């Protein structure tokens, strides 16, 4: 691609953090109007690259040119002024403000005396939300939203400004097919208008639909920049991790589910939601499918005691148990890996090891004193098993890459080792290699007769992993599909069911 056609070009860019070279000698040029995919394992340096463009970090080496001129943003504001809009991997909304306020924060419509024009605000917000397919009152406070909904708000926010370059860092990690379809339609429309797009994802199958070229990073170095046309998923994987990996899913038919481990009957969150019932057996992986906002996460949270519930009986190994707070659930042998790792899963400023042992400090302490050696050993073990990339187990979790943070959340519940695990988007943002390791780990847990409930927006993942899938639609469980009858179309149409019906 000729250089004069480039909207963005990086020359020998490097970025160093203590203990890690996040980027080293990256030279790349993005052509005007193309959709450029960036791939790489967790911790490869993708988000760091984006943060350089955003003005969050400054490069330690190399130069960046944007639109033919040197580009050295000092703050995110500089980046916006230059016409670069970024949807970051981590969500950055203000939880106590409404969706509308978040969307228009930098440009609130005003009347005389600087008074916010609420009507105009909500009207414009509504239009933006409609575009991304989030049909929800724009006056809703952001803290009440699910992660996928927040993701859509972030996307809508980026779309509310005209930009020359739009960067999307793992926008689809929590989205389900209809939202992804809509997002891709938006991307294609923007592209037709001449907007350049940089797109990062770990869902390798989806990138072919929108991408023109692909750049692959490994350990902070640029491996290759290629035309996406003519490449296949295995090609991408090989470039990303330097080797082939076998079939992504290795469903182990030898694991036969046993007795019911956890059963939920007539769980009612509040007066407006229907009662739901389901169960999971020992040694079974139960998939939970549904669209964004279909009430999967909410049901799991209510069951776990994280949110209040109105009614319902939870039985563990046939015995009814009273769960009014997460501590009851944990005591009775349940774990809940929450979808919102930053807000609900991690102690961002504490070290990796302290994040892992928080679920069961008793295991690494004696007479109320923490045994640091035992703690380090346990954490090191799990960090190794899940291949968490960190400079040491004493690194603050905040400084890990998104996928590696996700692995820490999983590690903390593996450390607790409860008999039933509820995993809400356990592989969110995790790269393809590590995902496979997580799948194998889940199989090991199932073989050890643990009951596993897996909520995922990634349908192929559920179909690869689960014995059974239950489908949520508008807070209701509309169907249960056994493995023998797995079929993407069928599950999707179940997921839509309550929304299309008048």
């Amino acid at each position, binding site marked *: 691609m000729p250089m004069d056609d480039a909207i963005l070009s990086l020359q020998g860019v490097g970025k160093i953090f*203590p203990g890690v070279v996040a980027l080293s000698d990256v030279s790349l040029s993005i052509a005007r109007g193309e959709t450029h995919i960036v791939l790489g394992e967790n911790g490869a340096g993708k988000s760091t690259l984006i943060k350089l463009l955003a003005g969050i970090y400054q490069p330690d080496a190399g130069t960046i040119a944007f639109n033919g001129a040197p580009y050295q943003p000092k703050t995110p504001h500089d980046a916006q002024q230059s016409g670069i809009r970024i949807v970051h991997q981590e969500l950055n909304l203000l939880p106590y403000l409404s969706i509308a306020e978040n969307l228009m924060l930098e440009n609130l419509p005003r009347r005389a005396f600087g008074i916010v024009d609420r009507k105009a605000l909500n009207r414009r917000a509504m239009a933006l939300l409609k575009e991304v397919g989030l049909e929800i009152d724009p006056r809703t406070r952001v803290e009440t939203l699910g992660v996928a909904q927040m993701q859509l708000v972030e996307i809508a926010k980026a779309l509310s400004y005209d930009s020359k370059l739009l960067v999307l860092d793992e926008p689809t990690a929590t989205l389900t097919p209809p939202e992804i379809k809509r997002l891709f339609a938006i991307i294609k429309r923007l592209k037709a208008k001449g907007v350049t797009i940089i797109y990062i994802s770990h869902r390798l199958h989806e990138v072919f639909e929108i991408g023109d070229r692909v750049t692959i990073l490994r350990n902070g170095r640029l491996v290759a920049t290629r035309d996406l046309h003519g490449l296949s998923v295995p090609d991408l994987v090989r470039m990303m991790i330097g080797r082939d990996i076998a079939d992504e899913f290795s469903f182990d038919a030898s694991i036969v589910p046993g007795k019911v481990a956890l059963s939920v009957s007539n769980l009612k969150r509040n007066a407006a939601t229907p009662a739901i019932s389901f169960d999971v057996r020992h040694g079974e992986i139960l998939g939970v499918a549904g669209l964004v906002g279909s009430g999967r996460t909410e049901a799991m949270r209510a069951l776990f005691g994280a949110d209040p519930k109105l009614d319902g009986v939870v039985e563990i190994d046939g015995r009814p148990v009273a769960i009014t707070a997460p501590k009851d659930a944990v005591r009775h042998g349940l774990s809940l890996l929450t979808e919102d790792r930053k807000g609900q899963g991690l102690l961002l400023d504490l070290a990796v090891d302290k994040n892992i042992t928080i679920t069961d400090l008793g295991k690494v302490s004696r007479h109320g004193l923490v045994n640091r050696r035992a703690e380090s050993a346990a954490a090191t073990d799990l960090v190794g098993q899940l291949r968490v990339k960190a400079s040491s187990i004493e690194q603050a979790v905040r400084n890990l890459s998104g996928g590696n943070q996700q692995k820490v959340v999983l590690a903390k519940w593996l450390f607790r080792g409860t008999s039933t695990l509820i995993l809400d988007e356990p592989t969110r943002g995790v790269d393809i290699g590590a995902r496979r390791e997580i799948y194998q780990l889940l199989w090991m847990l199932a073989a050890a007769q643990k009951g596993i409930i897996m909520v995922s927006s990634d349908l192929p993942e559920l179909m690869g992993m689960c014995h059974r899938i239950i489908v949520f639609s508008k807070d209701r469980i509309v169907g249960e599909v056994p493995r023998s009858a797995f079929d993407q179309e069928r599950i999707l149409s179940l997921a839509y069911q309550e929304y299309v019906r008048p």
Partner: protein
Amino acid sequence: MSETSEPLVSAPVSPSRAKFLRFLIRDAGVLLALVLITLFFSASAPYFATPGNALKIFVQIAINTVLAAGMTFVILTGGIDLSVGSVLALCTVVGATVMIDESLSPAVAITLALLACMATGAACGFLNGWISTRWKIPSFIVTLGMLNMAAGAARVVSDNSTITGLPQSFVDFGNLIIGGFLPSIFLVAVLVIAAGWFVLRFTVFGRMIFAVGTNDEAVRLSGHNPDFYKVAAFTISGLTAGIAAMVYLLRLNIGSPIAGVGYELNAIAAVIIGGTSLSGGKGSIIGTLVGACILQVLSTGLQLLGVGDNFKPIVIGLVIVLAVILDAYRERLLRRIR
């Protein structure tokens, strides 16, 4: 689990080096400030660098250090305790009332007084914590209420007068200077700091205090009850207010309903100067001790320099603000290093 991936690229700052830098920035920074301020006054203020003055400083920081130790727990969980000054006042009159009871032998009276002080303080702290967690009210408001209630209670208990006539053995212990350099009340303060340091650093409870201050929702979803730790932190703060009241009695030998006015602000200042973050989750109790020292050294040094009572608070106020600004920088530096 699988073939090893490529080794991490070697990097300029190794983890152990990062650990050292972290220590330098977080703890050594305040210590360095203390040393510099001390050197400055030693060179410029007459009588500052004398053993007598050093002793005086040790005596003077004892009360604030004890209060600030408990305050550190509260601030680490993300709360604030504005009531410690008047809780201290209440405890001094309760303790003094018990101690002057003629029917008891001095040893028994003193022991009972100590227990009464600690129980009263802990009860006030528990109420603070319980009310603010039970009804989800900011601790700022609840402890402001307690500030007034405890002050009122102190007046009721003492009938609005100072209480004197403490046992002679008690007064003597308060004046004791162990080995000619260690005032007994400073020793008490150091012991309280040491206990706090041990708890925060080595115990499961201490770990939970930090965790709750970092992200209480994550702690809750990990199967704990964060409110328990918040209430405990306030109770500890009340308890140290009770101990500080005993130190007050040892030093001034009177129980007074108007003792402790404004002490809460000094305690908070010591904690903040010592590097504990007001938003919770970050800080150290050793820093708090150093922070208390800095405040007192400044105050004494300025006085010896002849800076009038009117200007002194201005300087000290500036230092507090400066400390918070530095804290923001320190955070930024630390983020780069971890």
